């Protein structure tokens, strides 16, 4: 293990440049530890975003040596065997400053994919009985653990090619609701996710599935949406 790390960090907005720092190497050091060290000891003006530090909040995602990752759950030993780190903001999102991106379009697309639950019952009705072993519930469970970190969105070529594309996370969210038997907006949601900016734009490159820190497979969710939309069209529901 080298005594120091050579770290290049993106400084500036969309127009900017990498700046080099030397950071002491520590045992069990995460990339977030490195960024925090730089801000606290070397360059207080460095802007970055984090909250929980334990892989629950999804706010510290950055591009580490070319790949989108949660910095809090990425050990330096895993990504910088040669002691060199390159840390940049997430791709495919506007850079506010340094390592901080503007996540508005990412979350606006969840709303456009009708990612909110639409209840069919009221609080006076008894709780819905949903059997965990049913195919629909299993499909929803397989995709439900997304925490909205944006790693998949930053790893998708189609997002860069088509700025209207809803992206893997929003479509994955829509798929969980399509499989929620309590939800009452199926046809509207399928209409929202169909078409050139929706599930049919996916090229099955699977960058999302490759990089998802939760090991989710948004490509599978998007393929499910394509089948669901096809069936709905054949039945004349949308």
């Amino acid at each position, binding site marked *: 293990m080298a005594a120091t790390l050579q770290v290049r960090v993106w400084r500036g907005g969309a127009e900017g440049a990498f700046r080099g720092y030397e950071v002491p190497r520590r045992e069990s050091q995460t990339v977030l530890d490195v960024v925090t060290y730089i801000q606290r000891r070397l360059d207080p003006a460095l802007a970055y975003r984090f909250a929980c530090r334990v892989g629950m909040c999804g706010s510290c995602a950055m591009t580490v040596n*070319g790949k989108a990752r949660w910095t809090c759950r990425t050990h330096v030993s895993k990504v910088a065997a040669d002691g060199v780190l390159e840390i940049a903001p997430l*791709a*495919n999102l506007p850079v506010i400053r340094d390592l901080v991106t503007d996540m508005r379009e990412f979350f606006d697309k969840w709303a456009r994919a009708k990612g909110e639950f639409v209840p069919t019952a009221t609080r006076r009705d008894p709780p819905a009985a949903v059997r965990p072993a049913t195919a629909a519930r299993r499909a929803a469970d397989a995709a439900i653990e997304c925490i909205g970190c944006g790693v998949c969105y930053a*790893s998708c*070529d189609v997002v860069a090619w088509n700025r209207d594309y809803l992206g893997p996370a929003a479509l994955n969210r829509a798929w969980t609701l399509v499989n929620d038997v309590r939800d009452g907006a199926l046809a509207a949601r399928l209409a929202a996710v169909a078409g050139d900016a929706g599930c049919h734009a996916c090229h*099955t490159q699977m*960058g999302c599935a490759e*990089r998802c820190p939760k090991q989710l497979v948004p*490509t599978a969710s998007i393929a499910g949406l394509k089948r669901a939309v096809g069936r709905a069209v054949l039945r004349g529901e949308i």
Partner: protein
Amino acid sequence: MIGWRARNHPAYWAFLVHRLSGIALALFLPAHFLVLGQALRGEAALDGALRWTEVPLVKAAEVALVLLLAAHLAGGLRILALELLAWRGWQKSLAALAAGAAVAVGVTFALGVF
């Protein structure tokens, strides 16, 4: 824009092979129709054009063409399997299977040609 370090994984390579083989096959189509079109001018004209296929370089190009066709077909079947069948988590095995099938077809053709 994401960089090549992020794109370096099997599914992306499968996408690239599918896209590039598709473009190459589309570029070949005019030549294909040009040769077939010679038949409209009679048997001799077509045979004259087909004599080109005896040249070793053209034979090698034919092998490359068959490899491209096999790769594009296998890649397309892989996509259909991924999109239409229930997801089983064997997407990387599918990519490997498609690549293997394409190479097998290409090698078989090459052995027949040379």
